[in-house]
């Protein structure tokens, strides 16, 4: 009898606790959204209105005028295009190279496979600052050597290549973990049929890699889109800047009109937010494929 009473007491206490936890998490979640909501709110108001009537004043006008102005005056569209000119080839090349590496190191037992995998994964974790100075010089020298200084420095090609070289480690790691879960028999039957290495990769393995490829492409697109360091150090011309690094400059130029800047920031954030809401499952599994093995 007393056991049941105690049980009920325990459950009641747990229920009360759960209620408080839920309330706490809900409040915390609201606080979490405030910065973004505030930025959005700011972007809907004209600057003159805020100056005249104060930050908390009831807005006299609420519209998307700041977005139109930002679009016209900040070259947002050009920067956005630059971002995707960099991100799309980077993701395709990274996944292509990563899948090649993952295919060879998991399907063929060469002695150096593990060392290659270690090298690639470690390279992905290095602080980028360690690579910075010599790579920068290397780009300029290679450019001068062929008589075109902007071959790699201040060019999309150079930016794409450094992203691919660094991100390949992560892609290789994730895909090789995934490939270890694909039974070896599938490969064996391909080999018995006398398929070449290329056909083995292209017709047998690549179709099976669809889930990690989908997840990685979503995750990496947002990563490269958000990348900042290399875009700052390798791109000199303003009209070649991806949007994230252009924001640094726009911030200085439009510091006196932050309602306009708010509209610019929201527009810069929009592609990743859209990707996230539409492809949330891929985004999350891309991250977790890398952190929990297999």
């Amino acid at each position, binding site marked *: 009898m007393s056991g049941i009473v105690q049980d009920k007491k325990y459950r009641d206490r747990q229920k009360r606790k759960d209620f408080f936890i839920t309330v706490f998490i809900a409040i915390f979640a609201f606080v979490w959204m405030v910065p973004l909501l505030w930025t959005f709110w700011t972007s809907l108001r004209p600057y003159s209105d805020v100056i005249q009537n104060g930050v*908390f004043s009831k807005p006299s006008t609420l519209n998307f005028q700041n977005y139109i102005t930002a679009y016209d005056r900040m070259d947002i569209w050009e920067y956005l295009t630059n971002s995707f000119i960099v991100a799309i080839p980077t993701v395709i090349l990274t996944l292509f190279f990563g899948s090649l590496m993952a295919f060879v190191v998991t399907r063929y037992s060469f002695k150096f496979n593990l060392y290659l995998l270690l090298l690639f994964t470690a390279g992905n974790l290095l602080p980028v600052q360690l690579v910075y100075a010599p790579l920068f010089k290397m780009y300029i020298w290679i450019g001068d050597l062929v008589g075109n200084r902007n071959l790699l420095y201040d060019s999309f090609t150079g930016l794409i290549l450094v992203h691919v070289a660094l991100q390949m480690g992560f892609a290789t790691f994730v895909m090789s973990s995934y490939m270890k879960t694909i039974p070896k028999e599938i490969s064996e039957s391909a080999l018995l049929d006398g398929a070449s290495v290329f056909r083995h990769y292209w017709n047998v393995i690549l179709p099976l890699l669809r889930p990690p490829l989908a997840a990685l492409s979503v995750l990496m697109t947002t990563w490269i889109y958000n990348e900042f360091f290399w875009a700052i150090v390798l791109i000199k011309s303003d009209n070649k800047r991806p949007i994230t690094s252009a924001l640094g400059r726009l911030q200085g130029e439009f510091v006196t009109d932050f309602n306009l800047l708010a509209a610019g920031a929201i527009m810069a954030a929009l592609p990743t937010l859209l990707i996230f809401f539409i492809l949330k499952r891929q985004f999350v599994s891309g991250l977790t494929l890398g952190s929990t093995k297999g």
Partner: protein
Amino acid sequence: MTTTAASKKTRRRRAFSRGDRFTLAMFLGVPTFLHVVWVWIPAIATIGLSFTYWNGVSLSNIRWAGLANYDTIFTASPQFYDALRNNTYWLLWFTLIATPLGVLLAYQIDRKIRGSKIYESVYYIPVVLSLAVIGIIWKFMLGPGGLVQALLGYPEIERAIPIFSNYDINTYVILGIASWRHIGYIMLLYLAGLKSVDPSLREAAAIDGATEWQTFRKVVFPAMKPVNTIIIVITVIESLRAFDLIYIIYGTSTGWPILGMLVFVNIYGQAASMLGAAYAVILFLLSIIPIVFYLRTVFRDDVA
């Protein structure tokens, strides 16, 4: 026996025709070349350059400096100690506050409280934003004319109080902003790990009368060992890598110096100083521990 072994060997050798060998060489060679030339050779070159004087212009100007750059950093650069202190604060804050908060949130949301799906998305949102956007958003909150300024009673731009340049509070402010993103990131990783923990383990613990905290500490936490390691490593590496947010908030003025920024300001621009290379090497030496720890965790089965 020997014949089967031998025939196996010949079969294997025959399996690689000339074309196949070429394909394999390309499959491995092209990515490896790109990775080594773009990442490892520059990394090693930086280590070499950290022992030289060089303005970064022409190769013939390089002069051997021995440990002089490191000597300058350790004995004549107060900024270095500021940066080291700031990176340490960052690391401590992330390890002791932000990461545990992320884990706690993940644990509670995993219990399927009402609306957990919505909360999940809310906490993820900062994770998909770039640190540049995050920096700008928080300037709207804290800068002149921002929400926080108004709440504190300084809504007019001219009367705004300095927050980012106030040395008593700016460390907490920056770490708070960084946590906005980090907590969601950790929560995301932990939540995925928790979903793979067998729920019957927890039910059994509950039937045995274990409290929530006991269940977490004795049942869930040990079952999450690989994820725990990875989260610790990510926390440490992120704390050392920090750069973007500081650049957006302070530019290159080193208003709140960190190691990553000191590398940048010494190398970027017209005249480079190899002090920057030495800073990069220090950053690298600090990163080795978490990197090795990570590699050992994820490749343990392969090596054994």
